């Protein structure tokens, strides 16, 4: 019986992860597809290729756990359980968007699942995440905060100030550095004297791990053990997870024409695309069924966004203050 249960659990896990990662990939590619029509009149920073990090980590979080992210935040928003219709309407600048159209792609939030608002200024949400973790400690809560940011953020003062404070106060927070090697068009080697970013955390006495594989299951296991330790009260931890940004920094296309990076770089990551890897682990009929469901859901979200009204004049001056 036990064996059967394990197989069942394994299947559930695989289908759950595939569902989450395929859904994000579909959303991102649909956004890219409609982008030239200018229905989304705002910058988009797509997460294609990097989705597996958000999916792996959010899969082991509770709804009550809290995440902070960045302007490249579609994957995190969806992985944490953010409402897809509200996200799509937000991208379209509509009243039914998660922020009523006032945030857009760079400022997504869904408080109902503890997806905190994302910031368009590098590293600025890191101290906020630490402050939220302080509030959890203040109330003797059992929740964990996970703070996502890119490798570019590690050059900011706020990053170091935050790590020091989190370590000093032994706060319940996991820092996740998504290292895609590029800050817009600049390589890490041109920006950082210490390229082993996890060592920056160690210098603040924060236990740190580096994960360079394209392996969602292994990353999920690693983050699960880190989060369990944090939840048990062992203080903050740091995870440097590598990934590759398949598309341009901002916008819907690739950018090989710019010449700042070689197309060869993507080959390894494409070969190990976690959407395909997970999909191939599922029975074909289940995979097709999930894909169909998600394709329909994404199409419906775009119809929802299209149909939602634009905010009216009175919305302009609402919410400056509570």
């Amino acid at each position, binding site marked *: 019986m036990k064996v059967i249960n394990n197989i069942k659990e394994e299947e559930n896990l695989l289908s759950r992860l595939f569902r989450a990662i395929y859904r994000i990939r579909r959303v991102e590619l649909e956004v890219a597809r409609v982008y030239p029509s200018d229905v989304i009149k705002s910058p988009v920073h797509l997460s294609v290729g990097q989705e597996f990090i958000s999916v792996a980590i959010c899969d082991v979080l509770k709804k009550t756990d809290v995440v902070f992210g960045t302007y490249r935040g579609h994957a995190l928003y969806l992985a944490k359980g953010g409402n897809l219709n509200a996200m799509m309407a937000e991208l379209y600048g509509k009243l039914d968007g998660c*922020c009523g159209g*006032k945030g857009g792609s760079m400022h997504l939030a869904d408080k109902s699942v503890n997806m905190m608002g994302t910031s368009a*200024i590098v590293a600025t949400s*890191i*101290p906020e995440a630490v402050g939220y973790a302080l*509030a959890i400690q203040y109330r003797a809560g059992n929740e964990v905060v996970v703070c996502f940011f890119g490798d570019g953020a590690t050059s900011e003062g706020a990053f170091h100030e935050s790590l020091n404070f989190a370590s000093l106060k032994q706060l319940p927070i996991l820092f996740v550095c998504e290292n895609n090697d590029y800050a817009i068009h600049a390589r890490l080697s041109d920006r950082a004297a210490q390229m082993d970013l996890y060592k920056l955390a160690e210098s603040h006495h924060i236990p740190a791990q580096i994960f360079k594989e394209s392996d969602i299951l292994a990353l999920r296991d690693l983050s699960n053990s880190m989060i369990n330790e944090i939840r048990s009260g062992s203080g903050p931890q740091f995870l440097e997870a590598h990934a590759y940004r398949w598309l341009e920094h901002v916008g819907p296309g690739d950018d090989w024409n710019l010449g700042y990076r070689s197309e060869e770089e993507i080959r390894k990551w494409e070969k190990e695309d976690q959407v395909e890897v997970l999909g191939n682990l599922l029975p074909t009929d289940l995979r097709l069924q999930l894909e169909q469901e998600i394709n329909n859901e994404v199409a419906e979200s775009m119809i929802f966004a299209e149909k939602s009204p634009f905010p009216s004049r009175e919305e302009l001056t*609402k919410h400056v*203050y*509570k």
Partner: protein
Amino acid sequence: MSINNKERQLTYGGAIYEAISQEMVNDDSVFVLGQGVDDPKGTLGTTLDLHKDFGVKRSFDVPIAEDGILGVAIGAALAGLRPINVHIRVDFLLLCMNQLINMAAKSNYMFGGKMNVPLVLRGAIGRSWGQGAQHSQAFHSFFMHTPGLKVVAPTFASDAKGAMIAAIRDDNPVVYLEHRMLYSLKEHVPIESFASELGKARILREGSDITIVGISHMVVESLRAHKHLEGVGISAEIIDPIWLSPLDIDTIVASVKKTGKLLVVDTAWLTCGVSSEICIQVIERLQSSQKIHVERMGYENTPCPTTKPLENMFYPNPSLIASKVHKMIYLDQEDWFPSVAESEEIAKFRGPF
């Protein structure tokens, strides 16, 4: 009991302390963080021993990392706590302007009204005894310029208490600016906990010839000028706006409508300052119905010098204020500079800084 209460005097600093400690009793979510808040001086007494009375969780020292620490306070506020982030000088707030302007002021709006930041950011404006260029600035116009922030700069102890409690209870980020020269001034302060009305000015002297709006410590200096003006038959109405955002422009406009003349005396530079803002708002409201005369006074357009003789020239003082008003009333008369002793709180100040 009630008689004792009415006679009860507190310093400005004592009033701030009392407001914070009463709110900490009243609401478990209120806490204090800032450099030196738990040290033996306790932020000029305003946070003294709060960590002993309420525990180190409720009042604690922080690393010298203004940007990160304000971010931490914002994050705690997003989680529903009510942090008070303390800075011994306003100048240090420049290090956390990114968090203040880009995050605290934007959060509620940018996230559709779902992510408000109930936060108090305290900064003391320094002056005298060689504070110099980097310990004497007052940036209320920076903060006023930004939608999403509220700004208060109380002058008197009772207002300091009522405004602090109002700021703590407000669901938005409030920048609370306190002037170092006001700390020793005493006033009757009710012992009960009370929150003053947000955005409500205080008329300190009623008058009919001119309206003087003072900002922070310049209210005190304007009141001194008022005495001398009475001696030459000038009836000046003195207004302390207390709150700069929201600004009680209605009270100021009503006064200028009566007097026809307005002088704004700021504890800051004039260019793009609160003095410009108040003058233009009054002009916009009254220019079509009456002829009005507006003037401004504030810092000399230089950094603040450290040496005393130059520093004295950098600030408006009661004699200069009285002289300016005299000129506005008696346009044709010769310049008049009443002899006024240096204000006591400035002359006596020897620190601690």
